[in-house]
């Protein structure tokens, strides 16, 4: 269970260019797929990043299974991310110069696991997304859709409990989008908690919970039919 209590984020606080991105958001995500939606600039990515512990809130609390993780050290949060989180970014964020397979194995270098030991699993996941033949191609040789599939495999290689995905279908074609919908549904079936931000109505359709944001505030939340 992920819970946000009075979560706020103000960029450049106290300066002339101060921007309030998220204001006192309260929400609970109890497994399944939770989708943040709303117009551009409404704070979806900021909220997602805060819940993913890659952006420090200005105020408020974030609880994982009842524990306020913001009270812990940066080292603890890093370790928690390493062991429990997988990230998919809107801009994909693969490291250039590396092959698809090397990018997938990258998160393992931060752990005490043997990256080579995960090679088979990575290839299996890439194969599942139709990327087997492209495993040894560098990022520059892959299309946008292929890169996003690689990014998904990278997020899943360590089989994390929580997956955070920022606009995962925004830059991909229809075919890749369908692959992503199926993959996310499958992950939900396997008990993963998926938090994502999206404008994609098809993606919203498979969400268990939808949170509509407007100007940094949570305007509405509930089942997809309600929102």
């Amino acid at each position: 269970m992920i819970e946000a209590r009075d979560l706020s984020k103000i960029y450049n606080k106290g300066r002339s260019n101060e921007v309030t991105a998220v204001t006192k958001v309260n929400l609970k995500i109890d497994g399944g797929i939770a989708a943040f939606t709303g117009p551009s600039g409404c704070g979806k990515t900021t909220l997602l990043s805060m819940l993913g512990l890659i952006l420090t809130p200005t105020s408020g609390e974030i609880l994982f299974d009842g524990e306020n993780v913001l009270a812990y050290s940066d080292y603890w949060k890093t370790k928690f991310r390493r062991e429990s989180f997988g990230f998919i970014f809107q801009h994909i964020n693969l490291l250039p110069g590396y092959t698809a397979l090397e990018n997938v194995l990258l998160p393992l270098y931060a752990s005490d696991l043997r990256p080579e030991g995960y090679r088979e699993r990575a290839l299996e996941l890439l194969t599942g997304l139709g990327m087997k033949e492209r495993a040894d191609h560098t990022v520059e040789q892959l299309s946008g859709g292929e890169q996003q599939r690689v990014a998904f495999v990278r997020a899943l290689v360590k089989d994390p409990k929580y997956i955070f995905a920022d606009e995962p279908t925004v830059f991909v074609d229809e075919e890749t989008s369908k692959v992503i919908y199926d993959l996310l549904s499958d992950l939900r079936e396997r008990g993963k908690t998926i938090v994502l931000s999206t404008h994609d109505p098809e993606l919203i359709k498979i969400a268990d919970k939808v949170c509509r944001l407007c100007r940094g505030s949570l305007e509405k939340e509930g089942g997809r039919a309600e929102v």
Partner: protein
Amino acid sequence: MTLIRRHRNLFKYSLDALGRYRMRGAVVVVTFLIATTMISAVLFTKDGLEREAEYSVNAAPDLTIQYLKAGRVVPIPAAIGEVISGTEGVERVLMRTWGYAGIGQYTFTVIGLDLQGLDLTGGAMGAIESGRFLTPDDAGTRNIVIGKLIAGMLDLKTGDDMILLSESVEATRFHVVGVFSDQSSIYTADMIIMPLEDANAFFNMPDGYVTDFAVYTKPGADAGEVASRMSTIPNVRILDQDILLRGYKAAYGARGGVFTTLWTILLAAAALIAFSQAVVVGHESKFEVGLLKTFGFSTLDIVEVRLIESLIMGFFATSLGMLIGYAYAAFFNAPGLVDILLGWAFLPKEFRLPVFVSAESLLSIYAVTVIPLLVTTVVPAWLNAITDPEIAMRRGTA
């Protein structure tokens, strides 16, 4: 075991990153290569010159006695030699007449020695490569022993004649009976040794005068104490080996010191370049650090990765730079540097710089290259690592 595996993972990632950021690595390596090459050439040459100075002083007498008038060095009456000989602790006194003589644009040091008073055991003034050293029988024969540099420049060998011009522009013919070897290098390189009588005649010295006295003390005698016993002799100035060594080292060290300072400034500039490079590539670096933090790399992990990269780059560039610096000085004679370091008006192509690598210089070079590199690459990485990953990535892609 898991800890070792974790560090092994970070090490492997660092190696991969070095391959990936080739341009950044190349700029840093080339910058430090140039700087290290220059500073190595200066320091190794300075070390070589200082070692030569020590050799020269070791070959020098325990005390050198000069004569002063109105505070200036003038020829010393030979009769004073008897007073000096009578001083407690003195074993031997050697009269010398020396000065400079030219052949065309070249200037050489001419030393006339009292061959009767010279201890000819142990090579006298240095190893002879060909021919022989002078003996008492050479007095008045105009036989000479020359340095290897002179032999090379004038294409002379044992058995040849050479003509020297005196201050009064009188040509005198001398006969080469020996050539010093390389081992005595700078000390004998431009030296012409001849009997005292011939030197006196060549320099037109007044009868009964020489340039100075070389004094050798008895085994076990303290040169300082012997010198203090001579202090009552009027008008004499006494130089011991320490004073000579300090003089030599100050001359080479000061010049070398100027250069060391210059190259240190250059290195500081190189460090700045490395820093600016880190900032220029900063976007890429920020993005990478942010992404790694997202995956679960801790701040310490990031610092460790950058530390490994910088150490590999730094040691590689510095070691290669030192090798090139050594070759530049030892094999190519440090063009552009040698004149300033030696302060000679003319250096013939035959001259070979004495180059020596001391542990002190090696450590200094590593210290002034690797440490700034570590600071200029690790600090920005650390600053990025303590920033929220999302912000670091956003700055990196901005």
